[in-house]
């Protein structure tokens, strides 16, 4: 049992990562990763929401009529998101302002709904919450990697602390302005997916088209 739970927890970190394998929840992953602190805040918020939502949905799973199950799940998720949003506004006002609408948008994050719909609805609370925690951590891992890369190369700092002295401040590092723009998140996520699928070829999708066989003339 413990071994199975451990697998449920660790599978979504790389092997079944929700962002890089299932490409779920990338809109927030792209939007909040210009700096590491916002990425971390978002990762923690989403992990808390997905774990609690999975627990609640799983606890009432026998009482949810299947015709309105999505509505019930969204109500559960939305209530939790409002709580998290209020907590952030109360204790981390600065970051909450920079995250703007993306905390509220956790409600519509495919990752949260995907876990409650596909796992928590059919499993007891403990495995559901562990599965949700694993997925939240997998999402956090991607956010932290991308957020750290973008902040380090875009501004030369991490968590607002200057690591690489930029030219403006008399150092040697020229910030790569592109890293702070939206396209770089796509490039980095694409590179990350490429790297993971090169290391684990079983994740690669089957080719959509097969190239026709060609031969030189006269052969």
């Amino acid at each position, binding site marked *: 049992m413990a071994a199975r739970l451990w697998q449920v927890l660790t599978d979504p970190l790389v092997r079944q990562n929700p962002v890089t394998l299932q490409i779920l929840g990338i809109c927030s992953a792209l939007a909040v990763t210009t700096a590491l602190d916002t990425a971390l805040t978002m990762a923690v918020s989403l992990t808390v929401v997905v774990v609690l939502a999975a627990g609640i949905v799983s606890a009432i799973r026998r009482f949810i009529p299947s015709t309105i199950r999505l509505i019930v799940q969204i109500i559960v998720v939305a209530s939790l998101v409002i709580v998290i949003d209020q907590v952030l506004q109360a204790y981390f006002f600065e970051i909450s302002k920079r995250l703007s609408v993306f905390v509220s948008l956790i409600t519509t994050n495919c990752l949260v709904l995907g876990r409650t719909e596909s796992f928590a609805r059919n499993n007891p609370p403990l495995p559901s919450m562990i599965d949700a925690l694993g997925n939240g951590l997998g999402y956090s891992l991607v956010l932290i990697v991308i957020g750290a890369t973008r902040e380090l190369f875009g501004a030369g700092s991490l968590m607002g602390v200057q690591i690489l002295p930029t030219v403006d401040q008399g150092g040697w590092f*020229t910030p*790569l*302005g*592109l890293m702070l723009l939206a*396209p770089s998140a796509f*490039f980095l996520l*694409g590179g990350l997916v*490429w790297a993971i699928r090169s290391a684990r070829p079983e994740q690669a999708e089957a080719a959509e088209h097969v190239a026709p066989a060609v031969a*030189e*003339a006269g052969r």
Partner: protein
Amino acid sequence: MIRGIWDRETVALILVAALAPVAVLWLAEARGAGAVRLVSFVLTIGILHLLFMLARAQPPSAAALVTALALAVFTPEGLGPVQLLLGIAFGVVTAELAFGGWGRNILNPATVALAFLGFGFPAAPWPDVAVQVGWAALPALAFGVLAGVMPGGVVAGAALALGAASALGLPLGPAVPALLAGLALLVCDPVASASTPLGRWLNGALFGGLAAAFLAGWDGAHPVQIVVSAALLAALAAPLLDEIAIALWLYRRRRRLG
């Protein structure tokens, strides 16, 4: 493609031969520093091609020389080696090698690398294209079109659009060398440009039209910046233009033959 001696490398070598006048006149103007730059770009891109040959069994291509020349002519000045390496590696790997090597890419690697450098380091000044380099692009285009490795429709479409803009009173003068060199080095890429006859005319006209619009309305933009942006957008639209051309052809055919 015609079989026989016409394989990918024949096309790449004819392209290199066609662009030789541009290379010679650019080297005559840029001298030693230019030669060092060109050689180091060729080495960098060659090493990337070799890496992909070892990792994925993709044969390296002489088209690396074309990419290196385009980058040497248009790369912003004052960038350090690390920044150049980053930009070139990004352009060549994500625009060409990741798709399976030259011939399977959908965008010109030099255009992508230049756009990356332009967005990534907006403070670096764009280089001025010398007048003789612009004029050298004319025989390059003529030879490339005659030899069949550059799309004639793209040249004609661009000439039409820019001619119309000039006739309407847009002063093209200072941007002509950059426009001609960009047409030869970036836009008339046999792989990344459109591949249907009508699509090629539209592709060239789109490049010319965008360049004219940027010249007219983009304050403070350098001619090279305008050319690179127009080339990137025109190359992105090329598959769509092909799609339009094929849809029109199918429509006409259905009307004629029922």
